[in-house]
């Protein structure tokens, strides 16, 4: 389906697109001299990290940029230049010929209007259908995008839909008038991986049925590999490499693309340092005439720092904007600046348990209305944890994965007693920590530390780094007062920040640097165990790799045990010795990493793994990993929590909850379908 440029006229042809957006420091070029073509029926992936200009490029096509912004260049759409088109004529194209889907369906749908109206107003603007016909068509559209009981959902409001259903509704709105081109701006970023899989397949299916072209903006290279024909990589407002997905991913010619691809954890590279790109993506600024990537580039020469490269062909259907496009093919790529630590033993020997968790239960009561209380309606409870049990060994990294609402964060918070569990036991080094008080509790606090997700919220903005670290040292009497300054320098060095970082406030640092300060704060009290809750999920891919490498390195250096909670399976696989998969407040499978990923046994684990977009094996299948959505944790299904979505569910699954049972080796899973192997004892279940 991928068209070769030059043979047929492209559907969309963008030339020298420049978009200036207004900022407090004057106009800035968010998009700089961007050119690309899109063939009929093609899917183009526009990838880049935050601030690369990919979203602004997409929005510039329909001139959907905030008023003071200025769009220049040419955007040829079926013979017409959209940049110069009067607003009135552009409106006839918006929604009719070119439609858009945005990242966050919660904010992109108007909260006070019904879904039906928001579909119908598209039809009203572009078709001659009567009100009755519009309504019928709206139902049809909801049906097409896979919203069950479509007719009854038409009068619903966005907040009454789940995240995945909202995204489906937004797609229904976009395709209402059969557009030729769909602009999709990170349409699955806000979604869980099984829902992302469903939505990606939906877009691919619709593309086939409706003969649409798609421009797909994303930061996820796996999504590009699975969905796109061609790719354009953006950096600092420019396209720095473009070509067919297969060519570019197999042999990137721009060092940034190469670095980005290497930053993604791959099969076989478990617990080795990831290749990372040093530094951080540049902030929006008035660019001077150099290569924007030069400061982070291993191959940069003086020429790169003085002259800006332009996009030029390096091979048929493959172009890169680099002065040294041959460098990657001749020289071995530079490894990350840190010395690669020796590969850790695949599993620590003699794992005496550090954490022993059994039957943990936590429910969050839902606020009842005054009337409900008066009528004596029963208290409804969000069942966050339904009795998971597991062991974390000394020096071990246990990964906990699951989708949002599976209870993984609640679990992490219970372990450090940020949340008090309702029932169950948590033993740390043999001591029941749920009853610790006073000095004993502070002692436990010192031994187990947590590192947090939000780089912007996890540091007190009104304290300098020195105050933040010094406070932890002081409270736990880690060092005599005179030795504190030296210790702070040492801690900063440990997380690879310069000593002069100590006297700055958090806002002076980038996201990745802040996460490293957060790690330094945790290390200040010299803990034995770190609990990392979505440590890198807020960071750009290239920065993620830096932080992950640091964590691996520190673990080797300090012999830490780590509980790594994350939704990103690739990352968890990369870091962990063992992995536990959670679903609706329970652990459904727990096994050594290699075993789990090589042969997942629980149907949910299988579904989860097949839903993750894979960079290396672009499958382009339309088969959906798992249907349906997560049931409400207010009323978890009886029996096996996964049975409503499980294709193989039998009658017993609907009645009886399967216990987490040892099935040979170190593998445990909770499923009725596979009988326990001989000799394997059932794990105790309270």
């Amino acid at each position, binding site marked *: 389906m991928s068209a070769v440029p030059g043979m047929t006229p492209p559907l969309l042809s963008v030339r020298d697109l420049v978009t200036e957006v207004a900022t407090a420091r004057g106009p800035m070029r968010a998009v700089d001299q961007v050119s690309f073509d899109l063939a009929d029926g093609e899917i183009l992936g526009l990838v880049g990290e935050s601030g690369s200009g990919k979203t602004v490029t997409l929005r510039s096509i329909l001139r959907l940029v905030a008023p003071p912004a200025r769009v220049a260049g040419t955007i040829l759409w079926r013979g017409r230049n959209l940049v110069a088109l009067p607003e009135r004529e552009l409106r006839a194209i918006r929604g009719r010929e070119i439609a858009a889907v945005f990242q966050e369906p919660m904010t992109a749908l108007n909260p006070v209007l019904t879904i039906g109206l928001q579909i119908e107003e598209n039809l009203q603007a572009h078709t001659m259908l009567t009100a009755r016909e519009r309504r019928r068509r709206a139902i049809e559209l909801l049906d097409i995008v896979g919203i069950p009981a479509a007719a009854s959902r038409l009068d619903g409001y966005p907040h009454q839909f789940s995240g995945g259903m909202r995204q489906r509704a937004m797609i229904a709105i976009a395709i209402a008038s059969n557009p030729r081109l769909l602009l999709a701006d990170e349409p699955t970023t806000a979604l869980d991986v099984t829902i992302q899989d469903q939505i990606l397949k939906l877009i691919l299916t619709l593309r086939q049925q409706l003969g649409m072209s798609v421009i797909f903006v994303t930061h996820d290279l796996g999504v590009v590999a699975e969905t796109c024909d061609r790719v354009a990589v953006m950096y600092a407002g420019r396209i720095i490499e473009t070509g067919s997905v297969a060519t570019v991913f197999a042999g990137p010619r721009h060092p940034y693309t190469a670095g980005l691809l290497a930053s993604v954890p791959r099969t076989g590279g478990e617990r080795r340092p990831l290749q990372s790109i040093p530094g951080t993506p540049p902030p929006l600024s008035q660019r001077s005439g150099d290569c924007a990537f030069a400061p982070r580039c291993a191959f940069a020469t003086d020429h790169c720092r003085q002259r800006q490269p332009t996009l030029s062909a390096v091979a048929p259907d493959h172009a890169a904007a680099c002065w040294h496009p041959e460098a990657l093919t001749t020289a071995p790529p530079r490894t990350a600046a840190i010395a690669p630590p020796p590969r850790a033993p695949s599993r620590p020997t003699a794992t005496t348990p550090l954490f022993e968790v059994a039957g943990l239960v936590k429910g969050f009561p839902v606020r009842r209305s005054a009337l409900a209380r008066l009528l004596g309606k029963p208290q409804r409870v969000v069942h966050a944890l339904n009795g998971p049990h597991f062991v974390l060994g000394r020096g071990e990294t246990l990964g906990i994965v699951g989708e949002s609402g599976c209870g993984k964060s609640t679990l992490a918070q219970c372990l450090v007693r940020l949340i008090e569990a309702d029932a169950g036991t948590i033993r740390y080094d043999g001591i029941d920590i749920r009853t610790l008080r006073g000095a004993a509790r502070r002692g436990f606090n010192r031994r187990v530390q947590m590192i947090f997700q939000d780089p912007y*919220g996890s540091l007190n903005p*009104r304290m300098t780094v020195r105050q933040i670290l010094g406070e932890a040292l002081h409270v*736990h009497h880690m060092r005599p007062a005179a030795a504190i300054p030296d210790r702070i320098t040492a801690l900063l060095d440990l997380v690879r920040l310069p000593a002069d970082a100590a006297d*700055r406030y958090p806002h*002076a640092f980038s996201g990745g640097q802040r996460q490293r300060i957060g790690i330094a704060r*945790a290390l200040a009290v010299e803990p034995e165990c770190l609990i990392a809750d979505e440590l890198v999920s807020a960071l750009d891919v290239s920065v993620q790799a830096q932080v992950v490498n640091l964590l691996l390195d520190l673990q080797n250096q300090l012999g830490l045990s780590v509980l790594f909670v994350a939704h990103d399976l690739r990352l968890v696989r990369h870091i962990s010795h063992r992995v536990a998969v959670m679903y609706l407040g329970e652990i459904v499978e727990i096994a050594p990493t290699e075993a789990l990923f090589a042969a997942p046994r629980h149907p949910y684990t299988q579904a989860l793994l097949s839903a993750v977009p894979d960079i290396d094996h672009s499958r382009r299948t339309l088969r959906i990993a798992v249907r349906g959505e997560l049931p409400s944790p207010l009323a978890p299904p009886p029996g096996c929590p996964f049975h409503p979505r499980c294709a193989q569910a039998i009658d017993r699954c609907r009645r009886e909850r399967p216990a987490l049972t040892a099935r040979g080796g170190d593998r445990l899973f909770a499923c009725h379908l596979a009988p326990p192997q001989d000799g394997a004892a059932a794990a105790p279940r309270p």
Partner: protein
Amino acid sequence: MTAVPTSGAAADPRRRRPAIGLIAGLVILGLSLLTAFLPGLVAPHDPLSFDYKAILHGPSLVHPFGTDNFGRDMLSRVIWAYRIDMQIAVFTTLFPILFGTMVGALVGFYDGIAAQIFGRIVDAVITFPFIVLVIAIVAVLGPGLGNMYIAVGMVGWVFYARLIAAEMRVQMRLDYAAAGRVLGYGDVRIIVRHLLPNAIGPVLVYWMTDMALSILLGSALGYLGLGARPPAAEWGVLIADGKNFMTTAWWMTIFPGVAIVLTGLGFSLLGDAVAELLRPRR
């Protein structure tokens, strides 16, 4: 990989400079405070001395703001009133901001029965029109500025407490508060050292507004004869004095009013500037 932190300005492109508003606000309030502390130095005449040869004179070089029905110099009276009205702004808000911040911080941090009771108090206080409540209390206690401070103090703290409790809850959801708890810090340290400095911003902004509102309230009570008592020069009292001469001697009413508006403007400009300065930087 030794990345050097970027400078604050570069990392924060959205930062705006509130310079003009800030300077204007500071100049207005600075002059107001100076006048309040040293009215004798600024005023050309004695504000209380009668001059029967110059009754109800219009603005002139000798009396730029004219004279009142006793021949007193209006400019001097408006200037001396600064002393009372600026005092009203500060004294009315002092107890509420201190007590309210304390209560709000505790209620926001310790969610429990106290927070429930506090919620009910808030509900009740906001249903009473504030001025009606203050007037009712002043009616019980008797007119006068001292009683006005007591009356406002009885209810005014609720607004500060509500504001800070809400902001405390916002801050407590952020990870740095959780980090403090995981590090085993005591409640006092977390509240005083971590949460309060981040939660206090809206309170400081509201304080500016509240001082302006207090002047409006104080002058309203003065106008009604329930606040500062004549012959004390207070803007509300001056306006009440001039009301009956409005058609013949407009200057008696207009100039005290201008002083109120100008001071209010100063507080609100400063409040906007403070809000801008305290906006969390990312």
